[in-house]
């Protein structure tokens, strides 16, 4: 049974590195609320606090909230990248997370080599890898660029490459940050169909966005994140109304 459930999950970032002492000063004065001093571990940021949420097949969840509210951290938690520091997270289903266009790409390797690595990670064999490379090549129109290091690509080309790679696998649970929907007009037109098929085929979608039109269009449930907590969880109309209402 495909689903995802979080039970009182907390994620805390330790601040071990950098100039933690001066950082401590600035941080404690600006955002006192989310920093806690633990005696053993020093300063830490509570990125997510007491997150309880359960998703079932058919859920299209939109995450809204200000910058730094914990939306991307929540997506990383659901992807299993950050493991909970408190509470419990249970995920059933194959997860694909589309978080950042450049992430997971090796900039020094060519596009084709990056595709091979991604395919090997998914456990594909040679024939499947070729097929994937062909598919990405025909979708992205990168042509000869596919045999050049990713470093030489324009930002738009990197988006196209990661988009094509990420949407070539069919996830059961799809976690997306809004960059995918914020491409240039020409690319969006081309990408629209491919994205829609992948999104429709996914049993669960979690989408983080600042664009309320996108949320209304794609989601049937909305969670409003605020300072690492869930402020509201409900239908798009209710939750967005609460989120947008003046305080």
């Amino acid at each position, binding site marked *: 049974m495909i689903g995802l459930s979080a039970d009182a999950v907390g994620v805390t970032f330790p601040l071990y590195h950098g100039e933690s002492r001066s950082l401590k000063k600035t941080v404690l004065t600006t955002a006192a609320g989310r920093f806690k001093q633990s005696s053993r571990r020093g300063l830490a940021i509570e990125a997510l606090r007491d997150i309880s949420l359960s998703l079932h097949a*058919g859920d299209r969840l939109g995450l809204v909230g200000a910058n730094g509210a914990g939306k991307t951290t929540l997506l990383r938690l659901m992807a299993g990248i950050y493991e909970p520091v408190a509470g419990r997270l249970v*995920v059933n289903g194959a997860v694909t997370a589309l978080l950042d266009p450049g992430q997971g790409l090796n900039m020094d390797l060519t596009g084709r080599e990056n595709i091979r690595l991604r395919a090997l990670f998914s456990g594909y064999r040679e024939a499947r890898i070729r097929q994937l490379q062909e598919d990405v090549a025909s979708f992205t129109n990168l042509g000869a660029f596919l045999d050049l290091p990713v470093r030489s690509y324009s930002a738009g080309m990197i988006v196209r490459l990661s988009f094509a790679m990420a949407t070539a696998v069919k996830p059961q649970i799809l976690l997306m940050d809004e960059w995918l929907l914020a491409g240039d007009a020409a690319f969006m037109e081309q990408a629209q169909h491919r994205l829609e098929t992948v999104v429709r085929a996914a049993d669960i979608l979690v989408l983080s966005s600042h664009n309320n039109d996108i949320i209304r269009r794609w989601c049937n449930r909305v969670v409003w994140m605020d300072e690492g907590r869930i402020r509201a969880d409900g239908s798009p109309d209710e939750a967005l109304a609460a989120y947008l209402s003046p305080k």
Partner: protein
Amino acid sequence: MNVIGPRREEMAAAVPARLPASLDLSGAPRWGDTIATAARDLRATLRLWRLVWTLSLFDIRLRYRGSVLGPFWLTLSTTIMIAAIGFLYARLFHQQIDHYLPFLTVSLILWNFISTVTADGSTCLTQAEGMIRAMRMPHSLHAARVVMRNILVFAHNVVVIVGVLVIFRMWPVASVLTILPAALLWCVDSFALSLLLGMLGARFRDTPPIVASMMQIVFYLTPVIWNPAMLMHHGIAMVLVRLNPFYSLLEIMRGPLLGEKVEPVAWLVACGYSVILIVLAGGVFARARGRIPYWV
């Protein structure tokens, strides 16, 4: 089109994902769970051996992309270094060149493996930050990549060893089979060491320079360019050499390659240290695995 329900469609391009299908993570796991998760991580790395191999191959190819000789720079630079050092130190240590040069060749190439494994190992997780934060993947894969990459480098240097053995007419045929268990122990040890140093390096950023300077000291303390036979009449020094983990590990590989008998005590010491290393690396990995994405 306000609400989109799940509707299965034919997708020409898409293929089903074969990612780990389920996940159960707790903020306060029991020991049994942490060990089971760590074991799953290791098994996932084994299953992804094709990825480890390709990553290592790309690492080496990248280092020499655009160069004329390519990875054969590895072979060439080792040859030049051994030729340069060999003749000088044979004089300095009053050694016969036909004994000393094969010894030096094997020692230096093996030491090169150890020192790059420790150096690469201590940055293996911090270097893979992009991959670690992009998707959930086994963390031990990054340690395996260090080992595989250095085995590939070693393979380029084996040419030099064979060349020197041929020139000096040494045929270690009889002992060559005992290389296999030694090589296996080396693989396991370097994997455990990379994993341990990788985690230390992610948590404590001072680890790589500390490891680098320690290894420099250990290089002089370990019989790499000097032959332990030179210490034969200094009892206490010999005891210290025997207790040096790097000496016993070098001995079990060097002996068979040079056609010499390995003292059983070297195997005993090597295995003893290996057990300690593996238990330590395994324990730290089980305990700290989940924290790695927070550290890098």
